[in-house]
């Protein structure tokens, strides 16, 4: 708030608020909600899996782990480029900002593409949400993660266009920093999901 800049009365009116800009606080708060959403899904998965009478397929029996591992790597790389994009915009590096926002958006889109390919393959082999608790939990969890990536890609596409129009020039990094928080969060969720759904 502007009012913080010039306290009128010096007789003991302490400053309030965090030394963090509001959009960033807002995104952190929102991510807490997202954590609880995925906690609900993952918690249900754990309860269903360990309470299940059916035997759970071994890792790799149904799912194609190598393809998804590559996909995971792509998503991790996109987090790196996201950091680079933010760093570039902070230092006023126009070319870097454009390049790295574009790279992030493209890698996010690639991840989604591979996930759609994976879904198609699975459905082709008659493995769908109706295929026991395994299918129910797999498609619900990865589907909701994919939906979050999709929202991220939409925002990143918009950010890329903005970068090419010079919207982040002159050290205007806040938009990318806030978006980056979301992007890294979605990434982190994927690493957890990949571990518990594919590897364990």
């Amino acid at each position, binding site marked *: *708030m*502007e*009012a*913080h800049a*010039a*306290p*009128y*009365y010096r*007789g*003991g*009116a*302490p*400053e*309030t*608020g*965090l030394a*963090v800009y*509001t959009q960033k*606080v*807002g995104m952190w*708060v*929102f991510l*807490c*909600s*997202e954590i*609880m*959403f995925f*906690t*609900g*899904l993952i918690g*249900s998965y754990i*309860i*269903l899996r360990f*309470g*299940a*009478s*059916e035997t759970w397929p071994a890792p790799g029996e149904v799912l194609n782990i190598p393809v998804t591992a590559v996909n995971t790597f792509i998503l991790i790389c996109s987090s790196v480029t996201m950091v680079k994009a933010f760093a570039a915009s902070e230092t006023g590096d126009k070319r870097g900002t454009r390049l790295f926002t574009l790279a992030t958006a493209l890698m996010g889109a690639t991840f989604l593409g591979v996930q759609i390919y994976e879904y198609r393959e699975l459905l082709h082999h008659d493995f*769908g*949400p*109706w295929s*026991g*608790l395994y*299918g*129910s*939990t797999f*498609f*619900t969890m990865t589907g*909701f993660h994919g939906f979050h990536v999709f929202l991220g890609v939409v925002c990143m596409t918009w950010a890329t266009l903005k970068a090419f129009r010079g919207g982040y020039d002159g050290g205007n990094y806040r938009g990318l920093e806030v978006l980056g928080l979301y992007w890294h969060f979605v990434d982190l969720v994927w690493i957890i999901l990949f571990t518990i759904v594919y590897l364990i």
Partner: protein
Amino acid sequence: MATIVAQPTGVPVVEEHHEMSFIRKYIFSTDHKVIGIQFLFLSLFFLLVGGLLAMMMRWQLAWPGKAMPFGGLFPEAMAPGGIMLPEFYNSLVTMHGTFMVFFAIMLLLVGVYANYLIPLQIGAPDMAFPRLNMISFWLAVPAGVIALASFAVEGGAAGAGWTSYAPLSALPEASGVSLGQQMWIVSLVILGLSSILGSTNYITTVINMRAPGMTWMRLPLTVWALFITAILALLAMPVLSGALIMLLFDQTLGTHFFLPASGGQPLLWQHLFWFFGHPEVYILILPAMGFASEILAVGSRKPVFGYKAMVGAIIAIAFLGWIVWGHHMFQSGMNPVLGTTFMVSTLVIAVPSAIKTFNWMGTMWRGNLHLHSPMLFAIGFVMLFVIGGLSGIFMASAPFDIFIHDTYFIVAHIHYVLFGGALFAIFGAIYYWYPKMFGRMMSERWGKIHFGLTFIFFNLAFFPMHTQGLAGMMRRLYDTSGYTHTADIQDTHLLISFSAFALFASGAIFAFNFFWSMFRGERAPDNPWNATTLEWQTPSPPKHGNWEEAPVVYHGPHEYSHPDVTDKDWLAQNERPDVVSPARH
């Protein structure tokens, strides 16, 4: 205006005021005050709808199988010949709970007052994200419309209770409801999103938008309560959303989360629902506690007794609220050892509730009580909340819960907490902040009559339900006359139904007062209650941007009857100490 004696104490806020079109100003407004008032009309509408559904249930319970008045207006699928069908009764049970919990009480407490009060009470010009705020209102509207429209679809509205226990809610062939249940789910997912966006906004605003000098321990208790409530909603709503989506997938995509035939777990739904649901219960009472604390201080002309203990109690209740959900499931088939754990954590919650109650009494003690309508409702809130809190102890004790679980005892309890508690505080809040919202006073005389009738008929309607529960009468029964152990309580049903009709009718007095005062009420001064908090130190109603100059805060929130201030009995939060007197705060 004359009541403001404070010197200007702030820096001018540069706010550009463009002339806005009617639509930008009143429909798609980003002004938190307009959004709060929009929520007020929306939630009062759903309070009316929920009340009407309750009246129909009370008719059926008092005179089972008799044609309802105006029953002919209902289609064959609900009430052929005006006689209610059991499946329609189940829809009424479900939608009464859904509307009252999610669309009336929750929106009244949080939608209306978090929006309206937080920026004003912390001295901010608006919310942190005004456009997000507008979106959260315009998500709540379609959510309500979808829920309401579900009555019109084939199979009727959802009929598995507001808790929608699986597998009944997941199996259309068992409940007879398919589209209605799905609409119920979609409606609540949308409302959940609205609530999450709203909470993000409230939390960020309180953290980062407080005026200079508005430290955490100078926040009015209302803001504290709304802030903690927002945290609860932020963390609880997404769990409900996840569970609702799983339930929807069970119906539409063929998943098996809650369907035991294919390995799913019905109890998982209950765990997820109550993991959300118990924090939700506190979402529905904490803001009410905040309003009551504030109104009691204003009405008693005293600071809130034990302010820090009150804040601590709010935080303790919110924290404990996360580890007690299993007390809804003592008889569910959950491991009895878990039942013991949940019983202990639940009983512990009685402690912060007791702290609050005693501090409210402490606030009234040796005060100078102005018994205006808001104050009467706040006192009524304490008296009735105590009954709801004490009856909760019966259910918290797992062995006695064996008997009263799923009986009318729990119905009595929930209504003492949500109507006697939350709604009484809401009525108090409406009378109290109405002058600020609309610039006019509500009629005091009709307010007092409204209070008297509501208090009497509320108790006559809901207290006897305890006795029905003790007789062993199960809840959600379309017709209670078929059981031997409930055969001799039919006269109690009559008493309850007549009282409920009278209670509903006394709501008409409120409605009349509300709308009449909007146009004909006495013009309100800026600070009609001589209150200390910031919202009263700005015009009624406040302009867009709230402040001519940003306020600077020097005092705690409820400084009434300070011995150093002799010409009046209150000290506004933004009064400069060197101007007024050498106050110690």
